[in-house]
């Protein structure tokens, strides 16, 4: 296990180069920009595996514990891979009052995974998000950037069928 974390050879060289360039372009105290750097790393790699965290730590001359501490503190950072379609159920109060918990339950049942997990085919991840500010449409569910408003649990079936359909078309 330890070796896997230390092994940075599995990381895409081209993306690492891009990350290096980004870090070099930052002004001032680089350690202060840790959160920005992690944002960039996640944008490039999709998530923050531990070897990538270690890479960032070495690059910024920080301890890996410090970097891992920050990664696990903020909900925006993922240590696990993320599906091609990210289904987010808004759990803001407005959505909750209008039954968002039932919607989330339905998504979990349909995909047979819990929130924050990736489906077996690697297509979907489910998570709950805090208010996205579309309270007029509560309850709200988003798939990547597409917003679905006034969602009833039964609508979830259609939504997932739609994205599965997209995949079948592609293949």
């Amino acid at each position: 296990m330890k070796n896997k974390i230390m092994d940075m050879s599995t990381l895409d060289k081209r993306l690492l180069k891009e990350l290096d360039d980004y870090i070099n372009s930052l002004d001032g105290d680089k350690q202060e920009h840790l959160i920005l750097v992690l944002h960039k790393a996640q944008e490039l790699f999709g998530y923050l595996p531990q070897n990538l965290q270690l890479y960032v730590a070495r690059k910024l001359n920080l301890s890996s514990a410090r970097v891992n501490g920050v990664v696990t503190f903020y909900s925006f950072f993922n240590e696990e891979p993320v599906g091609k379609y990210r289904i987010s159920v808004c759990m803001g109060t407005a959505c909750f009052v209008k039954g968002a918990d039932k919607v989330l339950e339905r998504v979990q049942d349909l995909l047979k995974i819990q929130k924050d997990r990736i489906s077996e085919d690697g297509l979907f991840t489910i998570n709950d998000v805090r208010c996205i500010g579309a309270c007029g449409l509560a309850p709200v569910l988003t798939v990547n950037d597409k917003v679905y408003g006034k969602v009833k649990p039964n609508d979830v079936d259609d939504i997932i069928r739609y994205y599965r359909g997209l995949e079948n078309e592609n293949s």
Partner: protein
Amino acid sequence: MKIASYQELKNWQKKCQNNKNYKINVLVCTGTSCLSSDSQTLVEMLESALESHNLQVEIKVIKTGCFGFCGQGPMIKIEPDEITYVKVKVEDIEDIVENHFLKNTTVKRLLYKEPGQTKLLEKSSEMQFYKKQMRVALRNCGEIDPENIEDYVLNDGYFALAKVLENYSPDEVIKIIKDSGLRGRGGGGFSTGLKWELTRKSPGNEKYLICNADEGDPGAFMDRSILEGDPHSVIEAMIIAGYAIGANNGLIYIRAEYALVTERLRRVITDARKYGLLGKDILGSGFDFDIEIKLGAGAFVCGEETALIRSMEGFRGEPDKKPPFPSQAGFRGKPSNVNNVETFANIPVIILNGAEWFAKIGTKKSKGTKVFSLVGQIRNIGLVEVPMGTTIKEMIYDIGGGHPEEREIKAIQIGGPSGGVITKEYFDTQIDYDSLVEMGAMMGSGGIIVMDEDTDMVQIAKFYLDFIQDESCGKCTPCRIGTKRMYEILERLVNMEGSPEDLNSLRTLGRIIKDTSLCGLGQTSANPVLSTMKYFPEEYEAYAYKTKKTKYSIDPKKCVGCTKCAKACPVECIEGKIREPHIINESECIACGSCYEVCPVNAVIKP
């Protein structure tokens, strides 16, 4: 082009006026809610339709920030006549172009009607929703193109800054803000002028001015709407504040979830620099100031100022003890002043209209207006700005239009996870800082969630505690472990496995957490539970004594025997003849709620 004085700004404004040669402006709301209903497509379709009729030289389509009336979105307002169309769909565009622009007739079917009335309202100002509102912080939202600096200047944008740099010393600026009575809009309600003064007086040459845009309350989107709809006003206010406290560096700490807003801010800042409104020697005054954006990464606690500062420094966002206050030792250990977005949005108008003007609005101790997001079981969901002192009744019935299905509203929750509930008996309470605290709630950042008779208050308390559990940073024990234990007790109660003693434990734990937590988040984390326990003890007791009804039933007096419920029931446990009252067999009921959803006469009683 750099603007180097008040006079040059004035000349520029005149020039902007001359540039405006469109006869008609079509304002399309592209706030988050309308954008989610595809208002971007509306804009594109409008533009291409106008072009195909060769009208693009006379009519300009403007993407604006939030109109506020999200429940009726997407909305389109056509100036100068102010004709407002609601719930506009893609297929309506051709109709609007054809009739409104070519034949000059109003498209009646897209006009707004008050519920239960037949009169069509042409103008937004005639709508009940807007009548009791007063837009100060939101003055430009929905009125201008937020990314167009000329639009902002035309509405007297950057004139407050020019007035300050030309006429006032920093101390005079602070005095104006103090005299206005403006208090922080982010939660605590501390005097803004006093806060500036403290930072100004702190020794040191390097100081920081910070804008807190880490709006994290679930169900609140005020700051986001301001930044989306009128970002320049926040930039202008930050420069003024920087001048007042003696800071040359401004920082905006913004949630990573607000990606679109961040992009917009970046563009707006670049524009302001181009015209010499940010950077070196602003408006030729010799004052230097620039703004940098810092991204958050999804942590509610970072709305607390010491945690926010830690996060900006690249650490876990854990709060620190106070003192030292940020005004003494904040970002990088230097004196720092943190204000929230809405607070800043008020500054330019106060400078332009004077402290006295502002102090006349509101109540004795709470001056000005406050923006609220009004959500939940209410007809007119949206963004609302009212003078302080408006009653809750006016807010939910006059502006909010009451319950969408005319059911009884039993309480509102105000102040987010740190706030509390106010029940219908107290709806005459004025909305201001002190009255709310007296009621056991708080202003918070301004989320109002309306709840009807069907809302289970124990579930609501559990929902908030789940949120706090998730967001507790873990630094201090009362918050980290105390809220966990409270959550477990609530879970036990809700699963009908609790006991009456649990209620005492909840109260005791709540009080201890309140007294011993380190930061504001922890100290207020028990509020949703304590406040619902105070006003709805019977709902807790029903769980604790296991007398809570868990199955649905039908009111035989209301039931008309339409058979809809029996058809909808998935386990076929509803019986009854046509046109006779139906009965639910409670031993078989799975409490799915299907019957409740389909009943046309509200005869089904929710457990």
